[in-house]
């Protein structure tokens, strides 16, 4: 087993080990960990071979939203990412279509299981948890369901400190810690019934929801109102080799590395320069994984500037205006090739660069999972959607949105309350995209510590202002809200709280120690495997190397699990040093010769049914397709994921054929999203408890 690594931020818990078989061979894993993580921890990346073309398949979403990770568990095909590992499991690679396990005994004891509640909250992520709490406080009886074993949703994967404001959304606290705080509140509340490892299978006209519970039972729930806080799914991308094991979503990667502490990879590359992609790069570095680069077709990263700056300083190159050409490998990803794009977004093959990596993360955006909301609305049930299911934004905004969603639902259920307009305004601000960039404030060095603020772009974030005990930092009032950038006014007492709390790692302290030298304090969220006296490479805000600095003192703040390093540096650079390089230049080198085998029509559009761009395009052309339903004739959207993934890719296919997607008719959303064994639907041999 790939040992759980020591993590600079996360505490590695003592875990119970269990044994399991994979294709008849004995392995060890951690009890209750997702089977997919246990397999990858044992270096098993190929989970199945597809029945159409025998292509190898591994994980993609690790979030129950696709079916790539299906394996045979004790004879049954199951999504390994939502199945907890148990002692003695017999796991097998799925080779083609599975054979039906033969159990011919007569129908045994069976039953229907019912619950009822005032509000069913679907999804226990940041928005759902807050909404549930809000409603429970108002004495509504809540059932909160979540498809994972632990509450918190994506908060559990966020080892970084949160943006936003302290009062509204725990800014400055790490995501996984926020999850714990909220989980404890929820668990203590008498009005909330929690159902983990539970997926909503359908919402029905008779105002019931069908729940698939712990992979084995089916419960029907009556509700008065339903909150949809189901989050988002990661978009995939069309390029040749996109189906190879080792190509997966950034969220899946965070699940492996941050939730399950599995060092899934040795060397990765990332497509997408949004917050998700850049944070994934950061998480990889924290896990001791090399990040060879990040590419994006955009001219500038779409993430917060502080994220991009941080990543550049750590020695990860950003290839802007670059696209992924293809991924290659036999049964598993071995290398990827990127190239610059021209003004028409076409790749310039002469600029191709190839990198040897074992993992390619796709971080090209998220799509709301809101089909249950649409169904509930169609049935005219009281319903509210919140968090990413409503609009893709930061988790800080999701929490605040959950608060509003709770109030909205209470109102819909007849509670006489008024929702303050101010709340909506605040919610909008928290959802804001990054704004203007301002020049850096020039603070003359003195013999006393003073903050050097490398946070220059408007983002919704203010913990530095709220934590400063002497109000030495405040937001420069331009917009008049938390989008404004911070500014120093003097009188720093050197408490280092701003350095510790800044989610963007964008504040350092500096003081003069001689006529030529200065001392700086930098936050450091990596394993400290060195002592004072060690020389570290120091960079400016853009990641340009400036000088080596000697470590003078190492402080570890237990509460925030942040290390602060004091370093000696030259006086002239003290103000502009913003961070420490983690990766050596050697690591990020491209291969000497680029590998160019560019056949874009070979890319897979529908990976459930293994349909290529060419097959789909040919059919559209030949049959003059203007109704997505027609594509079902070649099985687009007929697979296990219910069209969740390919439906996000089809607009691009039509666009590439110069067909206006507005002229294309879209099918009705599907009523069921999760596959359930027949036996579970009638709770055969399941007790009501």
């Amino acid at each position: 087993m790939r040992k759980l690594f020591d993590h600079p931020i996360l505490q590695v818990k003592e875990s119970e080990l269990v044994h399991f078989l994979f294709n008849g061979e004995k392995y060890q894993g951690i009890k209750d960990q997702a089977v997919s993580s246990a397999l990858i921890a044992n270096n098993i990346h190929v989970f199945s071979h597809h029945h159409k073309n025998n292509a190898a398949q591994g994980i993609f979403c690790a979030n129950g939203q696709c079916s790539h990770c299906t394996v045979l568990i004790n004879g049954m095909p199951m999504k390994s990412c939502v199945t907890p590992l148990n002692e003695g499991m017999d796991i097998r690679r799925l080779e083609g279509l599975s054979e039906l396990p033969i159990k011919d005994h007569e129908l045994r004891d069976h039953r229907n299981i019912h619950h009822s509640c005032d509000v069913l909250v679907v999804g226990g992520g940041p928005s759902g948890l807050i909404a549930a709490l809000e409603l429970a406080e108002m004495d509504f009886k809540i059932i909160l369901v979540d498809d994972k074993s632990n509450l918190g949703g994506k908060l559990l994967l966020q080892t970084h400190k949160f943006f936003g404001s302290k009062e509204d959304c725990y800014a400055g606290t790490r995501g996984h810690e926020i999850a714990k705080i909220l989980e404890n509140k929820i668990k203590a509340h008498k009005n909330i019934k929690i159902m983990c490892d539970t997926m909503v299978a359908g919402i029905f006209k008779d105002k019931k929801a069908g729940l698939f519970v712990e992979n084995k039972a089916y419960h029907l729930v009556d509700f008065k109102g339903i909150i949809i806080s189901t989050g988002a799914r990661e978009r995939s991308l069309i390029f040749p080799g996109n189906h190879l094991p080792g190509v997966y979503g950034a969220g899946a990667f965070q699940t492996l590395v941050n939730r399950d502490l599995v060092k899934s990879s040795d060397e990765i590359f990332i497509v997408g320069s949004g917050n998700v992609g850049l944070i994934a790069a950061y998480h990889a570095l924290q896990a001791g994984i090399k990040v060879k680069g990040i590419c994006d077709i955009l001219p500038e990263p779409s993430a917060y500037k502080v994220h991009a700056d941080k990543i550049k300083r750590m020695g990860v190159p950003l290839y802007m205006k670059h696209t992924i050409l293809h991924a290659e490998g036999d049964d598993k990803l071995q290398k990827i090739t990127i190239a610059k794009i021209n003004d028409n977004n076409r790749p310039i093959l002469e600029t191709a660069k190839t990198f040897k990596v074992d993992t390619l993360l796709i971080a090209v955006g998220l799509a709301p999972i809101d089909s249950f909301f649409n169904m509930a609305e169609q049935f005219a049930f009281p319903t509210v959607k919140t968090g990413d299911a409503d609009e893709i934004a930061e988790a800080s905004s999701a929490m605040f949105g959950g608060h509003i969603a709770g109030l909205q639902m209470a109102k819909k259920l007849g509670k006489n309350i008024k929702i303050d307009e101010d709340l909506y305004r605040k919610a909008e601000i928290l959802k804001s995209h990054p704004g203007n960039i301002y020049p850096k404030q020039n603070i003359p060095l003195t013999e006393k510590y003073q903050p050097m603020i490398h946070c220059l772009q408007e983002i919704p974030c203010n913990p530095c202002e709220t934590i400063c005990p002497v109000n030495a930092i405040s937001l420069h009032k331009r917009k008049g809200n938390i989008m404004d950038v911070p500014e120093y006014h003097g009188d720093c007492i050197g408490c280092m709280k701003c350095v510790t709390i800044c989610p963007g790692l964008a504040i350092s302290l500096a003081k003069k120690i001689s006529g030529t030298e200065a001392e700086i304090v930098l936050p450091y969220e990596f394993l400290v495997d060195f002592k004072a006296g060690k020389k570290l490479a120091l960079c400016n805000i853009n990641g340009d190397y400036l000088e080596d600095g000697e470590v003078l003192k190492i402080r570890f703040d237990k509460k925030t699990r942040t290390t602060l390093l004091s370093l000696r540096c030259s006086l002239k650079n003290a103000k502009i040093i913003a961070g420490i390089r983690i990766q050596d230049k050697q690591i990020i080198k491209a291969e000497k010769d680029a590998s160019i085998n560019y056949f874009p029509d070979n890319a897979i559009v529908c990976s459930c049914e293994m349909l290529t761009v060419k097959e789909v395009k040919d059919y559209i052309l030949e049959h003059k397709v203007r109704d997505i339903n027609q594509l079902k004739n070649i099985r687009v959207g007929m697979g296990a994921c219910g069209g969740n993934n390919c439906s996000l890719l089809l607009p691009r296919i039509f666009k590439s054929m110069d067909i206006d997607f507005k002229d294309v008719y879209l099918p009705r959303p599907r009523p069921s999203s999760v596959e359930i064994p027949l036996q579970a639907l009638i709770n055969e041999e399941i007790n009501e408890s």
Partner: protein
Amino acid sequence: MKNYDILVIGAGSIGLATAYEFAKRGLKVAVIDKEASPGQGENKSAIGGIRATHSDPSKIAISLKSIELVSSMQKKHGYNVQWKQGGYFYPVYTKADEITLKELLKIQHQLEVNISWISPKETETLIPGINTKNLRGGTYSPGDGSASPMMLADAYYQLSRKAGAEYFFRESVVDMKCDRTKINKVVTNKNEYSAGMIINCAGAYAKDIAKMSGEDIPVFPESHEAGITQPVKSFFDPMIVDIRPVAESQNYYFYQNREGQIIFCITPLPPISGTDRDSTSAFLPQVVKRMIEIYPRLRNLYVRRTWRGLYPMTPDGFPLVGMSNKMENNLLAVGMCGQGFMLGPGLGKLMAEYYIDNEIKHKYVFDGLNPYRKFVAEEKLK
């Protein structure tokens, strides 16, 4: 105004095959449908069974023709429609059902349907693992089978377009202008049409269409629910039809298609009338219990999704096919009672042969389906 020889209302199971057969004869054919592409109404809700094992001469003749056409579709025209000749099996658990089905066998044999009674032992060989407790045997018709409704719809769409038929999608008929004997104009939300013959193939909406020419036809949609599982390796062939009614449902049936997926459907009791397509929580537990009872092996299959479709029912369970007795240029091909998919290919062909080629030998088929008959008999194998 657009003028055609034939105007088909509805590009579904009946309309598509009809358009092809009429266009093939050199007639200028137009097809109007409110959906965005062919077969998007009840056609795609059909589960795909095609059988000749009915209880009356008309449907048997039509279905035998359907089987002939669908089974040769790939060979003759190159369209793979997932035809599988897996047969139909009606298991029998009660004395009463045994008597009914054995009586039917006599009629079916007279009409040259390939069907016979098989013993529980033979059943076990045919359907490995089936629950044989109280099983008395059943009727098995190896010539019957199944195909993909969507792919068959597409095949007829392609064939009819090649034969010259024109299609107008996302177009709803909103009005008809008639004199005392003729429909002069069909008005849609986009256009106006006139035609030598207007064929009502509007399925669940046939009654609404007929009303526009002042005709009241007894077609009443009922909602049925169906589902499909994940694909697994093939493990049984026939469509299994259990005709026993229980407290909340009547018959139900299921089979494994060429992709390896099990498709199943149930008739609710009491029937759910109307055009509501929204799923209810009752369906899955209800049908699943009955399926596992009869075939325990199914318990480990995963249900992938469910949907509802409409059965355009008639008072006696038989279709209404024939010329309108009010409007001389109006042909009715409606009220298929949930069997439009299996009847469509044969019916399209027989209608063209009877009404265009004047093939008199089909007279008995259409006499049996006369829309103005007295509804006395009742279909025994709905």
